């Protein structure tokens, strides 16, 4: 499926030029949008295999807390904090995945959901992790001695990391490895895959671990952005938000979650100061899309684009 390059280039250009013209408020919006897009794309890489993770927030939290603990409690540099976050999340996901990925459908989803709850409860339980009130004064990284303490400079960190991860996951999707993941989508085709020598278990676990390493890393960055962390920041509602971004955007192609996360985050940040209204609108949009637009917004965009391209004289 050949994608045209120009929309993508335009977007990246816009993102790069933003700090020159935007206000602090819009920089905040941009940061949150980029974080959510990366989370959503990472979730999609697992969804693509036919597995629904209902506990991705747990891995985001794991990364966030790892970074915070490393930097605040152990006084390690925030850069290592970010790296450590990704490694811890990835390793945890590898272990959990090795045990749970032979479960299919709802069983897997519930196991990961349970794990997500355990993670949050774990951090809430101990004072070393800040307990119910969490930990504040999370330090941000320094770039050549200059701490990234304002929205504009921190934006660059977020932009670089999210573009990196998006490029990584996009690229992987179109490799041999990415195509092989499609063979694992249902139980029947996984059996076929096994019968031709594909080590399904290892592939699935590796993909899940990569996805969680990505969200763990971004979770660390997220915590540094907020400059605090507590058990209420990444909850089951976060996991459902990511799911909604992906489903609304469309889970048949990579750009679906990107569009879904981008649009819904913009909508959420702009219109709703109160969480319940945001959730209600998100949920309603989700239901409308599920019931009447199965391919998500991307399918609508594709349809419009096709019609527009086919209009003048074929």
């Amino acid at each position: 499926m050949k994608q045209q390059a120009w929309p993508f280039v335009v977007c990246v250009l816009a993102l790069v030029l933003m700090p020159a013209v935007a206000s602090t408020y819009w920089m905040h919006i941009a940061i949150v949008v980029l974080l959510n897009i990366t989370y959503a794309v990472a979730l999609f890489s697992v969804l693509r295999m036919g597995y629904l993770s209902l506990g991705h927030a747990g891995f985001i939290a794991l990364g966030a807390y790892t970074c915070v603990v490393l930097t605040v409690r152990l006084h390690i540099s925030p850069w290592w904090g970010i790296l450590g976050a990704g490694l811890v999340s990835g390793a945890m996901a590898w272990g959990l995945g090795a045990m749970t990925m032979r479960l299919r459908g709802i069983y897997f989803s519930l196991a990961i959901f349970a794990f997500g709850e355990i993670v949050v409860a774990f951090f809430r339980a101990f004072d070393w992790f800040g307990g119910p009130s969490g930990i504040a004064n999370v330090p941000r990284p320094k770039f050549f001695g200059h701490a990234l303490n304002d929205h504009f400079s921190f934006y660059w960190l977020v932009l670089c990391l999210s573009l990196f991860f998006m490029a990584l996951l996009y690229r992987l999707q179109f490799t041999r490895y990415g195509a092989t993941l499609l063979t694992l989508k249902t139980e029947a085709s996984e059996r076929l895959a096994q019968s031709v020598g594909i080590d399904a278990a290892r592939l699935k676990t590796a993909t899940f671990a990569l996805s969680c390493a990505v969200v763990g890393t971004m979770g660390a960055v997220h915590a540094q952005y907020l400059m605090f962390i507590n058990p209420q920041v990444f909850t089951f509602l976060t996991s459902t938000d990511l799911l909604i971004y992906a489903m609304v955007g469309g889970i048949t192609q990579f750009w679906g979650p990107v569009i879904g996360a981008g649009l819904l985050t913009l909508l959420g940040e702009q219109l709703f100061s109160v969480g319940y209204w945001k959730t209600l609108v998100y949920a309603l949009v989700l239901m409308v899309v599920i019931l009447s637009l199965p391919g998500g917004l991307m399918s609508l965009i594709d349809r419009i684009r096709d019609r527009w391209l086919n209009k003048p004289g074929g």
Partner: protein
Amino acid sequence: MTAILQIQNVSKQFDGLAALSGVSFDVQQGELLALVGPNGAGKSTLFNAIAGVFSPTQGQILLDGQDITGLPSHALARRGLARTFQMVNLFPELTALENVMQGFHRHMPVDFMGGLFQTVAYRKDQAEWQTRALDVLRILDLQALADVPAQALPLGQAKLLTVAIAMATQPKLLLLDEPAAGLSHEESSRMMDLVASRVKTHCTVVLVEHNMRLVGRYCDRAVVLQFGQKIFDGIPQDLVHDPRVVNAYLGTAGMGT
């Protein structure tokens, strides 16, 4: 003459019910062997035991002299054993060519890093995969359908594609689970014709089949099971005359046609 597959005293019990009892036979390299028998005879059980779906309660299965008893399916694939499924099993969203390419995993690893960095070696491999996949499709006359998504294929072509995918693993032994099931008279003849004339030149084939006409016409040898035991092992032409086989099939249509 080397026996590519050796079934040695294989038995299988399911909760006390003996599905297989002491079945033994060899399959010679290059043969086309049919596993037949009335319903409930144990053909599927034996097939699944060989294919690694479960382990036999007793006995050994040797592939090219190596014990493969109880190995999981992806390990079997790497030892050179391929199989098709009774229900047509394909990768629905991939094209026919891409489906076949998935069969090359035994010989060409996923190369995660190569794909990530699009190295020269990776791209060369991809091009080679595509050419080889096309060659495999040609064995079964499917090359024209290379770019068709698998879910769009009609049953006859789909079944041929399942055989192509299995062939792509370059197996020593190919197990076909009722390859003619659900196909029309012409399609099933065509399927068996391709198997007997082309597939057989690449590997040994063992198939489970109900259609005795096809067995008689295309297969080199037949093993008949009844109540989990082997009651006949020989050429299909003799099968019709064997009193035990006739007894087992008494009343079943299709004999001797």
